[in-house]
């Protein structure tokens, strides 16, 4: 009678095989979808911020499809750096990425999955509800390579309490009145607080400053890449901002002002007005942080000669060409882009890319600025990114406009240099 003895190696192998068999159903069932985005996108898709009412849209889709969501979040530049590194690989670990339109260049678009065929095969509901202006920002050579998900459109925020203190009321209705208000609102309060009439996050990016300058008719370049940076609107706008800086209406640290610094100064009443996206309304009126909850309102920026101006930045869903689960990626994009979920995400604080969402009663009840934002977005412009050096062109605008505003260059010289440098980038 032979006696069978299990060796240590056999025991280990049997244990490993057993664990593998036990784990197999779970592994087979659970798929992971990796999303690369800014934290704000995860928050609005999952209703992660306290007090929002849109619910966990992404979580519901994940539960229905047996998918685990792996959300990788970072700031704007690192997101796009990571994405471009992933796109250069043979296979990407990213299934869906949220890209901002200033990075939506021809070079990037070539590495992303063309989405027209997916839309034809299993389309997003009521796709026509997304304005063509937003879709054009993520279309190159007629090919759609991303689906707009969020917009950040600039508006004019103003502190009603400080306005009242200076004998003013209501939002300014013309650019001249806006400048006049900014001057009158530059003062020292009885408690010693020095108030700047106007703040703009000039150190953070071009959009808020460009919004203000566009009120004078300024433009860097148009959709056909004709450079117009030295136009009379730009020169007049830069001259006015330079005067405001010299008079102390704009803060002395104008050139490095970050988004957070502008928000804080509005919350503390150190700035009476600011140009920033509409969504800052929530932060400005946050009762835990703001000295003026409910008193900081927002309205569209009035333009010279009537009407309104705004700049808008668009975040859009993209699928890497080298992604491994494109069916799943598209299913996720389609679900989050539906009309109903656009409203739910807006209730979570997202800027809805479908104008119809602004008619929703829940949204109107929760966000008192929906009417004003709808006006702003109807007048909003995007900065085209149809050439590879478009991010550099934005930086050139920031450099030259800063130089003019703080007096390192004359407005004429800065505008002329801006034109020359941007033209060189477009021709490159």
């Amino acid at each position, binding site marked *: 009678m032979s006696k069978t003895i299990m060796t240590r190696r056999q025991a280990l192998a049997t244990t490993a095989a057993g664990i593998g068999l036990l784990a197999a159903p779970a592994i087979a069932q659970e798929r992971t979808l990796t999303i690369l985005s800014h934290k704000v996108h995860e928050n609005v898709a999952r209703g992660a911020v306290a007090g929002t009412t849109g619910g966990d849209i992404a979580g519901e889709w994940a539960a229905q499809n047996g998918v685990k969501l792996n959300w990788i979040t970072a700031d704007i530049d690192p997101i796009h750096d990571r994405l471009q590194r992933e796109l250069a690989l043979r296979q990407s670990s990213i299934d869906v990425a949220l890209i901002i339109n200033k990075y939506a260049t021809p*070079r990037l678009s070539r590495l992303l999955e063309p989405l027209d065929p997916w839309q034809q095969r299993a389309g997003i509901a009521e796709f026509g509800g997304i304005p063509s202006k937003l879709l054009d920002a993520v279309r190159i050579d007629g090919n759609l390579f991303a689906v707009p998900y969020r917009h950040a459109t600039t508006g004019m925020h103003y502190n009603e309490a400080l306005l009242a203190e200076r004998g003013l009321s209501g939002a300014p209705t013309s650019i001249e009145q806006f400048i006049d208000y900014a001057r009158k609102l530059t003062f020292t309060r009885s408690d010693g607080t020095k108030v700047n009439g106007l703040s703009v996050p000039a150190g953070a990016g071009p959009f808020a400053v460009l919004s203000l300058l566009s009120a004078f008719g300024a433009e860097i370049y148009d959709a056909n890449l004709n450079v117009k940076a030295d136009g009379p609107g730009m020169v007049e706008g830069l001259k006015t901002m330079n005067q405001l800086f010299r008079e102390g209406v704009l803060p002395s*640290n104008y050139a*490095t002002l970050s988004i957070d610094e502008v928000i804080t100064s509005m919350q503390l009443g150190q700035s009476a007005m600011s140009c920033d996206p509409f969504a800052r309304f929530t932060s400005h009126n946050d009762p835990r942080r703001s000295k003026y909850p409910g008193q900081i309102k927002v309205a569209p920026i009035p333009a010279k000669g009537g009407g309104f101006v705004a700049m808008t930045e668009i975040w859009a869903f993209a699928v890497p060409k080298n992604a491994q689960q494109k069916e799943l990626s598209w299913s996720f994009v389609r679900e989050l882009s539906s009309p109903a979920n656009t409203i739910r995400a807006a209730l979570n604080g997202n800027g809805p890319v479908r104008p119809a969402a602004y008619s929703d009663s829940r949204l109107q009840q929760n966000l008192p600025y929906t009417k004003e934002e709808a006006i702003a977005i109807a007048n909003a412009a995007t900065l085209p990114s149809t050439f590879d050096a478009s991010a550099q062109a934005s930086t050139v605008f920031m450099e030259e406009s*800063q130089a003019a505003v*703080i007096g*390192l260059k004359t407005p004429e010289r800065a505008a002329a240099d801006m034109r020359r440098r941007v033209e060189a980038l477009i021709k490159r």
Partner: protein
Amino acid sequence: MTNRFAALPFLAPVHLLLFGVIALPSLYVFWLSLNESSYGTDLVFVGFENYRTILTDPYFWRAAWNTFVVVNVIVYAELLLGLALALAFARKIPFKPLIFAMILVPYAVSEVVGVLVWKILLNPNFGLIGRTLADLGLGLNWSSSPSQGLAVAALIGVWHHLPFTFLLLYAGVLSIPQSLYEAARIDGAGSWQMFWRVTLPLLIPAILITLIFRLVFAFRMFSEIWLLTKGGPARLTEVLAVYLYQGAFRYADFGAASATGWMMVIGSLAVASIYLFEIHKRMVKGDA
């Protein structure tokens, strides 16, 4: 001779490691600097075109000048302060352990956190220092004035790295035999003469090592400028590391960024070379 060969297998792993983590990537970066390179595109060999591009770019030269000025200010200010502190600590001072710990604290603080805290403190609207100075009529304007921006960056650099310089110099001061001071004192030397004739000559090797380390490290200065001014206003406070970062990670121009990297290596070697030659001379003589 046999012993020298016998030591080779023991040294080889270290050399392989250095080759793998320093030499090989450096050579690859040099190869990249000879190519046009970006995400998702094949390398295109362009020879020294990237070097020509950056060397004819006025922003590169401004960044190089800013780097040269700030690095020298930081390193020599640290040297003077570090030396003064080391000499003070060599004497009997009250609360020595406490003051020693206080001097070392900045080195324990993350560079990013340190710079951001300084930025908040110096904010002219709500910063403790910035606001106080403004109320006293001495308002700093570091975000609009390039020279003030660079000065603040240098100040933060000195604050953060002074402990390193101090520690190296303090170790050097402690290693000087007390018998030399006793002999000098017997010969009638005063404090000043003892410093010039005993302390300083014997501290030269430690000073040289400190200078080389700090010059090379400071040449890579990035976070102070990036977090404070992002190189602005109008790129007037940009330093070479920021110039490189913008090229590589914002504009994805890896060829020019690699060329900038190599120019930084050459630049830092050029600045440190005087001290490297001096230390080499002393090593040959057996003085270091």
